[in-house]
């Protein structure tokens, strides 16, 4: 952080210009490394427990294909629109950036809505977090991802407000860039959830 202004680098993209920004972006990558370890642990837990269904339903009996497909579609698209937002930012177009961020946010909210619906549906079928080890690990793994997405939505709202207040500055650009890293990461995690939890669960 020291010497922030000294090391201002005009040649870099806006989000990398200050020393502080470069440090923050690197730190966030490392944080994502920790998040990988966190989700890896949750996946390992799920894989260990997923056939231990006790007296509750199995994955095959439970999972709803339709909701999950819609969720997947929404989240993957949002990752794409998030990329478009950063693309617009690199071209220096605030309005394009804001539009795509907003679209991303709405798609994310759509994802969460469907996920909540899916969970409510399971609970109505009597499949709760308390029913079996399989369901505990399912709800905690998928729920942790969902909580991350919700947090990301809140975070994006804050950044949109700051963009409206302050415009595109090295600082706001950095924030957009970091939230986009976070968003893409959640997308990758979802792909693993989709294959390891849902697809595998519907086959085995």
């Amino acid at each position, binding site marked *: *952080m*020291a*010497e*922030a*202004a*000294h090391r201002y680098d005009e040649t870099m993209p806006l989000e990398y210009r200050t020393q502080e920004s*470069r*440090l*923050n972006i*690197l*730190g966030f990558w*490392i*944080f994502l*490394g*920790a*998040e990988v*370890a*966190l989700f890896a*642990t*949750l996946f390992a*837990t799920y894989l*260990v*427990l997923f056939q*231990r*269904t*006790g*007296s*509750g339903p199995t994955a095959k009996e439970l999972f709803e294909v339709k909701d999950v497909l819609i969720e997947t579609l929404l989240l993957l698209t949002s990752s794409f629109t998030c990329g478009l937002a950063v693309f617009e930012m690199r071209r220096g177009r605030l309005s394009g950036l804001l539009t795509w961020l907003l679209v991303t946010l709405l798609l994310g909210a759509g994802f969460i809505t469907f996920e909540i619906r899916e969970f409510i549906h399971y609970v109505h079928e009597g499949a709760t*977090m*308390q*029913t*079996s*080890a*399989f*369901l*505990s*690990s399912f*709800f*905690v793994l998928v729920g942790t991802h969902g909580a991350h997405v919700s947090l990301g939505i*809140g*975070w994006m709202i*804050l*950044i949109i407000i*700051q963009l409206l207040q302050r415009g595109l500055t090295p*600082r706001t650009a950095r*924030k957009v860039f970091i939230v986009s890293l976070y968003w893409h990461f959640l997308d990758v995690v979802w792909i693993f959830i989709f294959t390891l939890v849902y697809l595998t669960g519907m086959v085995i």
Partner: protein
Amino acid sequence: MKWSEFFVTGEPLIYAADVAIVLTIIGIVFVLTYFKKWKWLWDEWLTTVDHKKIGIMYIICAVLMLFRGGVDALLMRAQLTAPNMKFLDAQHYNEIFTTHGTIMILFMAMPFLIGLMNIVVPLQIGARDVAYPYLNALSFWLFFFGALLFNISFVIGGSPDAGWTAYFPLASNEFSPGVGNNYYAVALQISGIGTLMTGINFLVTILKMRAPGMTLMRMPMFTWTVLITCVIIIFAFPVFTVALALMTFDRLFGTQFFTMANGGMSMLWANLFWIWGHPEVYIVILPSFGIFSEIVSTFARKRLFGYKAMIGSIVGIAFLSFIVWVHHFFTMGAGPAVNSFFSITTMAIAIPTGVKVFNWLFTLRKGKIRFTTAMLWSLAFIPNFVIGGVTGVMLAMAAADYQYHNSYFLIGHFHYVLIAGTVFACFAGVHYWYPKMFGHLLNERLGKWAFWLFMIGFNICFFPMYFLGLMGMTRRMYTYAAGLGWTPLNVVATIGAVLMGIGFIVFCYNIYYSARYGERDMTGDPWDGRTLEWATASPPAHYNFPVVPEVTDLDAYWAMKKNGNGYEVKEEQLEPIHMPSNSGRPFLISIAFFIAGFGLVFKWFTLAIIAAIFIILGLILRSFDDDDGYYISVDEIKRTERLARKGA
């Protein structure tokens, strides 16, 4: 919930503690008010983002926790001195060994080392602060309030009592009703978040903020060990985060992760715990290795022998530390193939460790050795740690471990590595860097008294435990029968524990004595040091270096002294220095964490949610905060530097 359940009642020891706590609080409030120090406390400490002050606060807390954990230890030794003692009952004994282990590892050893690394690493790499000073303050306060939450358990609600390993099913609601293990799950979670952020912070600091010329291969060994430790933290702590979260879910919301019915799997806890837990023991030993390396090289007046081999072995140890965890439960019967694999990986750790031992020995060879207190701790470390390591290799033989496991032999092993490794390193580091922290030296005479008392006491206390273990005494038993032949060695062990306690008291007295009569360090370089922290004043101005030093060699400051006049600053070179602003928010957010944690412990969810809202509010305010720090003008730097020199 009734008040009589809320406050722990019925134990004279606890009532005494209640009184002591109330008196201490009244005392602190009185002193602060009487001397009008509240503003000072807030401005200088509670809101500081200066890595040196944060480091000092870490160390103060760690010493307090060493005291608390030490009292636990003495209570246990008192109970075990003779057969059939009635001093503590079984429940109370369970609580005490649980809090002892948890506190010593998570609230004493790790914060002590994190404190030293806060103080030393930015100075060693010629930086003005860490990469994220604000986050650093938050890390500290989360640790602080996590530790506070854990520590109030023994007067409010009851202590955890399932061991520091908190194995299931013992730690489940069924076998551990009450809130004790909720404290364990929640308090460790809060301080663990702080540790993870420290790991990220120091990794970026070391990678990105080194002075010009300091390539990776010119980095001081302590900084190297911290770098690798950060990597371990970043990959190990998330596992603990998850394990604790699942424990919390099981205990508070009735999930079935580790239960005995509905598909739960108690072994999963043991695995998750040790996937974090084994790397954790290396998190507390690697920086210790770094401290010893610095001290040995300084007081042997020689460059560290085998610098590259040293780095290679740290990296090797870090890697291996992730693939040995099953050695903690060979006896749970994973089968010969699995046990053999983990047996071999465990033994393999002895190889890089052995390389390091020889490196220290060769550094000493033909050195002009000065036997300062810091050096005594470091020299004592080598043979004592080797005893711990050798017994570790014995435990690593899966078949033999069926005999040793969970006996006093194991207790002997891990105390020989943790005390002779980490605790000796903390003492060594404190004596070595004390002048840098406070501007005066610790008294050497008292320091040596403390050293000999503690070191001899340590051996008297723990060496007999190997034999007690071989004689069949198992760990965590609160009493034993008279005819087993264990009594003499237990008496000896208790005597050793008392000596260690006296050593600790002498150490604390030394802090007081040296503050009053200690020799001032006017030069900034009392030991004829080799690394950059000795180039600047003691204590350094809060910007550390008026001009960022240029590094041309490993042992950067030594090279400056040999090739010229050391680190010289010409007033023309000065430029305004940018520094981060203080902030009270990390402190306040951490209080909210404490309250939320307290709510979770007692399942007062409304309270927890309200506190959580305050946490989120704190984060939002941070997001909108665009304080860019401030500049220290050249005039002010000149004034500070002239004052520092006039002192000299």
